[in-house]
């Protein structure tokens, strides 16, 4: 139940988004709980998107820690 998988929205029809989970797997996901757009990466739990993943933030986190340790960014 807490197992979530990320996927990328291909198409939206109302509350339902055709979502690509990689390796040729697509599934319909209910997006009632998020304000998602086509192309967004979403976290999916039991058929429902619970959040849109923010790619910029992911890069920012890594950059922040690399700077902290004086690693080349």
């Amino acid at each position, binding site marked *: *139940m807490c197992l979530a998988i990320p996927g990328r929205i291909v198409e939206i029809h109302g509350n339902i988004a055709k979502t690509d989970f990689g390796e040729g797997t697509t599934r319909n996901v209910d997006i009632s709980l998020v304000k998602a757009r086509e192309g967004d990466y979403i976290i999916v739990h039991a058929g429902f998107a619970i959040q849109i993943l923010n790619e910029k933030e992911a890069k920012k986190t890594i950059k922040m820690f690399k700077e902290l340790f004086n690693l080349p960014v």
Partner: protein
Amino acid sequence: MFKFKDSQLASRIIEELRQMHLNIRLMHACGTHQDTLIKSGLNSVFEKLGVEIRQGPGCPICVTPANEIEEAIMLAEHGCTLTIFGDAMRVTGFSKSLYDAKAEGFDIRIVYSITDAVKIAEDNPDKNIVFLAIGFETTAPATASTLINGVPENFYILSSHRYFPPALDALLSLGEIKLDGLIQPGHVSVITGLTPYYELLRKYNIPQVVAGFEPLDMLLAVYSLSNQIVKAEPRVENEYTRAVTEEGNILAKEFMNKVFEPFDVVWRGFPLVKSSGMRLKKEFKDKDARIVFSDILKNVDVQHYEEPKGCRCNEILRGLVDSFDCPLFGKKCTPDHPVGPCMVSIEGNCNINYRYTGGRAVKL
């Protein structure tokens, strides 16, 4: 799919942790965190660095007590069509599991999501379809939005949903185990945001970091916690900023608040946990299986239940021990023949540890 990886950063953090000469115990509360720890071998890396990590009550099926499974079995035995997540099939109620009840011929169907259960109700208007709704804040909003968007008349919810943060509060207030910090569950936090953790900080002054599920996430989380611990500066930090915001998923919370209200409920392994149960509000009482089928459910007698002999799930859920400490692990108890719920659910500590160690009673 974008990746959250950086091997240079990962090695550097391990080095930093080594230089801290740690001797600490942390708790995470999520099956997916345990999965990452064991699958990547990070748990043994952390052990060598003086960081012990226990899995707490973060497995919704494991913490659902036997009486709630028994309620589901009773409804199936009295003619309802029961729809459940597959992961719950082998958990036993008072004497048998839903799997056993299905084998006896009762109508129990596995669904991937509540949407599938609603579809079954639409296709079978002459039957009563009950959805056993298990899960924390991660799944409860889906149940709530489904009810708000409208369901067929013959569709009912048996709510075993629970608010997660009150369980951590209960665990910390029991004070049975010394914990130096908490790795907060990424996906519960996606919904709740950080507010509940500030409350825990105020009450228990315990370091906390919300973490994602890649090995690098766990390394960053452990590094941040270790820093807080070493400097004695407990805070709430958010490492999983790509998914978790300060305020959480407001829309999902609104759905939950419209449909559910908190009440005191028992968790497996815990005494009554205050305001942790999610009960359907009055407006939805004609969808609440506990009200609609109260005549059937009043016969569920909690008094006569005993936990399986020798099973240490209760202590595992409170973080007191690990599955490797259970003498039945990998011997009498395996995923094919589970003794307790922690071996049934794919989010359970015993199940995860078994899957990656082949049931050896040793840590990897």
